[in-house]
């Protein structure tokens, strides 16, 4: 391939949705493209701006506090139709934690039901206790278990036609009951594995990149990278969760 490939990433409202090291996800997408010679243009969409998704390949939305999530939701509701068109046209969308909840029809802020973006057929209510801790998920988009950290009061329920991101091997997942975690719909990946989802789960990062390449160039081929450090971090945590059930010291 002689033509230089290039992808555009829109990072939605990083100044509000940056609670748990969310910028790590964008950094990982960028580096994993650059290491393969794929030009990566990251645009931050700030408060007061609406995202224009016409030329965007990957949109990313992170997690924030309830208050900040509400502000973002209000902005995004104004461009809901554009977002829905992007998703239906197989645009790649990664949504983490609070961002994941926004994908659905509604979520609860305290006792108040807040209207969501209805991009994916799911909704979120809440219950006690908060579901907090390290999590491991078996998913078809990653040969390794997806490992990370979850911290949410929300209980997310998937519509009947929506596939889960995967099956919980350790931790709580969508609602702490179903054994399911996250959602997969077209090229949307939603998950409670918050903050730096992608660094320790390079296959998830590459899934997003390859889906975006496929959509723009009709070819999803990705050269392999040396992921020794990433996979070691993944494996160390996974083995710890399986061995001692993550009992803290």
């Amino acid at each position, binding site marked *: 391939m002689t033509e230089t490939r290039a992808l555009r990433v829109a990072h939605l409202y990083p*100044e509000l949705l*940056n*609670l*748990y*090291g*969310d*910028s*790590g996800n964008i*950094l*990982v997408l960028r*580096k994993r493209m650059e290491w393969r010679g794929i030009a990566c243009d990251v645009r931050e969409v700030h*408060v007061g701006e609406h995202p224009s998704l016409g030329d965007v390949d990957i949109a990313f939305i992170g997690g924030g*506090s*309830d*208050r900040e999530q509400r*502000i973002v939701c209000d902005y995004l509701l104004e461009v809901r139709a554009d977002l829905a068109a992007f998703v239906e046209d197989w645009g790649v969308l990664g949504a983490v934690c609070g961002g994941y909840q926004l994908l659905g029809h509604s979520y609860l802020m305290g006792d108040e039901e807040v209207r969501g973006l209805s991009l994916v057929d799911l909704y979120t209510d809440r219950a006690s206790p908060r579901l*907090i*801790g*390290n999590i491991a998920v078996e998913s078809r988009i990653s040969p390794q278990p997806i490992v990370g*950290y979850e*911290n949410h009061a929300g209980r997310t329920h998937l519509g009947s036609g929506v596939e889960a991101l995967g099956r919980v091997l350790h931790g709580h997942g969508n609602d702490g009951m179903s054994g399911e975690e996250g959602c997969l719909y077209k090229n949307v990946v939603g998950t409670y594995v*918050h*903050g*730096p989802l992608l*660094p*320790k789960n390079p296959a998830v990062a590459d899934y997003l990149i390859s889906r975006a390449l496929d959509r723009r160039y009709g070819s999803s081929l990705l050269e392999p990278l040396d992921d020794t*450090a*990433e996979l*070691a*971090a993944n494996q*160390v*945590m996974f083995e710890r969760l399986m061995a001692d059930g993550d009992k*803290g*010291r």
Partner: protein
Amino acid sequence: MGLRSAVASGAGRLVHWGLSAVLHRNASQLPGRIAMAIDPCIIEHLRAKASRGSIVVCGTNGKTTTTNVVAAALEVEGNRVLCNRAGANMAAGVASALLPGPSADWAVLEADELSTVHILPQLRPTYLVLLNLFRDQLDRAGEIDNVQDTLVAALATSPSTTLLVCGDDPLSVGVALRAQEQGTRVLAFGIGEDLDLAPDRVPEARFCQVCGTELAYEYRSYAQLGKFTCPNCGFHRLALDFVATSVHVDRKGVAFELGRALRGTSTELVKADFGGVYMVYNLLAAGAAVSLAGVDPESFQQALDDYRPDNGRLQHFEVEGREVVLNLAKNPTGFNQNITLLLDDDRPKAVFLVINDDYNDGRDISWIWDVDFERMAGIPDRLQVIAGGRRANDVQVRLKYAGIDARIADSVEGALGQISDLPAERPLYVLTNYSALWLAKKELERMGERHD
């Protein structure tokens, strides 16, 4: 004191004696826990022991150093001080600190922010010092809103307490304004000039605490601390009762003029041989608190001259001819400040970054992605980086994406082994979060000599 609290106090003191004098063990938690189990109101009954009053210090970063400096300055003037010097800062640690001896002049107590709601109703301190609020341990503390609500609620239970607050920190000022509405007396400290320092990459608390508009800054000193105003509602940096000017900061020390609005234009020079802009705030807060407690400026400076930290905060050691600098760094702001300190040291060097995820550290280490490790990249010949701790692999991945090729070591000794081929003039900086700090300190005390 009633029978129940006398029994509780006696039992606690017996345990304290048994642990420290007989078993030579740390007595910073258990005596208080036992006394509290017998008498849940033991802090209330012990408060009268501090005949002149008490000072509680809280805030995300800098509590232990500030508490120790305040206690030392009071002691210079001959006061007998009860103090949780080792930083056991929940209610049991505070109760333990109040147990020893029949009486005292002052109690100076570091308090975990969330524990203030248990401590303040009983202790009703003369002063509460609020240093700063940063994101830290979200899994345990919840979001910062929760920490703020807790502090406001704690102050409501102790109306006689004066809040001495960092007027430069929008998050702390948010607490102060709400406390003021419920009747708390508020005094503020801050830096009165632009230090021309670069802002952090991931700024905290960019939005107005009252109306949510993005704050405007005339200048920032670090993180979200600076001279801020809200362009919409007028929320602003507080008028400063204690102000630092002519500030000089480098890695070896700080110096500034401490001025008091209450005393007109006179200022006193404060200087110390521990560095970092955050140290200006810690010492300014300490200077303000001891000034309110009636300590002379000369005694405060004397305390700083004599102060030798023994708690792993910026401690210097020498191991086989190599300088080793140990410091605590447990959240993005703390790490960013430490990176500034080590980059200010223009010698080639190595750094050992140790991250654990025990309960005391916070189990969730997502925040390492908000630290500007990128600032250490691009000089591998002059800055060698080693990762350690229970989450060494995560640190290694973070560094990889910052453009830094780091190896892993399982101890300070291991890290020193990896750099044994480097000239001995190159120092090793050891930056650790909470639970790793004591292990590193113990190792360094075993292997080397302290250098004050």
